[in-house]
């Protein structure tokens, strides 16, 4: 698989970090932040590592950023011929995740495996990724509007990058 030199391998997240990430996603949907925080203190998550990273309102957004890069990787694996189109956006998502994780003072999380298989048809794959980019762009705008000033420029650039990806996915 194409792996340009400037893309460093993602650090393997601890089991605790992975589960925390799952809770962050679940917390955003059904469980609620209170339940997620309570479970975070539960023994089931004690993986032997003293994780002092507090939950952050951008945890779900960070996880979805990782998932977006994962979707590109899965598409590239299924359709290597799309490398010239997909590599730069994929690399951007990895850079976004790293920059955001750094800003939040936490490691880049591992996202759960995506539910569905990637399309094996080029046009369908482009449409699939474009849908994800559009949703991601809107999520980045929301995050930027709601976020702290120190994160505004980064989140704005992420929104703008996703908007620009839509151009090359046409």
């Amino acid at each position, binding site marked *: 698989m194409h792996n340009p030199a400037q893309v460093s391998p993602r650090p393997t997240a601890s089991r605790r970090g992975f589960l925390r990430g799952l809770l962050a996603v679940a917390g955003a949907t059904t469980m609620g932040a209170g339940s997620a925080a309570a479970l975070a203190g539960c023994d089931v998550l004690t993986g032997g590592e003293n994780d002092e990273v507090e939950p952050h309102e951008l945890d779900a957004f960070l996880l979805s950023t990782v998932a977006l890069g994962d979707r590109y990787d899965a598409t590239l694996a299924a359709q290597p011929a799309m490398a010239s189109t997909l590599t730069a956006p994929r690399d*951007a998502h990895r850079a976004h995740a790293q920059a955001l994780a750094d800003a939040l003072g936490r490691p880049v999380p591992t996202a759960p495996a995506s539910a569905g298989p990637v399309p094996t048809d080029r046009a369908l794959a482009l449409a699939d990724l474009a849908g994800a980019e559009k949703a991601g762009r809107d999520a980045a705008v929301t995050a930027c509007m709601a976020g702290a000033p120190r994160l505004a420029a980064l989140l704005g650039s992420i929104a703008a990058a996703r908007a620009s990806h*839509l151009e090359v996915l046409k």
Partner: protein
Amino acid sequence: MSASTDALAEALAAEHAAIFGYGAVGARLDKAGQEAARQAETAHRNRRDALVVRIAAASATPPPAAPAYQLPFPVTNRASALRLAIALEEGAAQAWRRALPVTSGDDRRLGIEALMDCAVRATRWRRAAGVLPATVPFPGAPS
């Protein structure tokens, strides 16, 4: 002026420069390119007008356009025209990105929309120029 009004004034200066620069861009492109340049210039004019209103509402004086701007390099053919178009969008993107941390509410939203628009147009111009990759990971970040 406050930090937010200062930042909006810088964005206004970048929009003035873009409006001026697109005149030089369009002169060296074919019909399709001229249309793209015209649409880009319109977008910059609209943001310029919005900025003038906001800065004036903050009881500050919006910096006017200069009578002429020095282009960063001579525009003599299609290649240099496209290079200038990319530079105009990147310059505006940088000014808007700097405004984001010091603005809030409607001003920050204007900034986000502007940054996205500049990034999209820059990508279109890069594609026209054959610049690869056509996207950058952090639009508006200092180069």
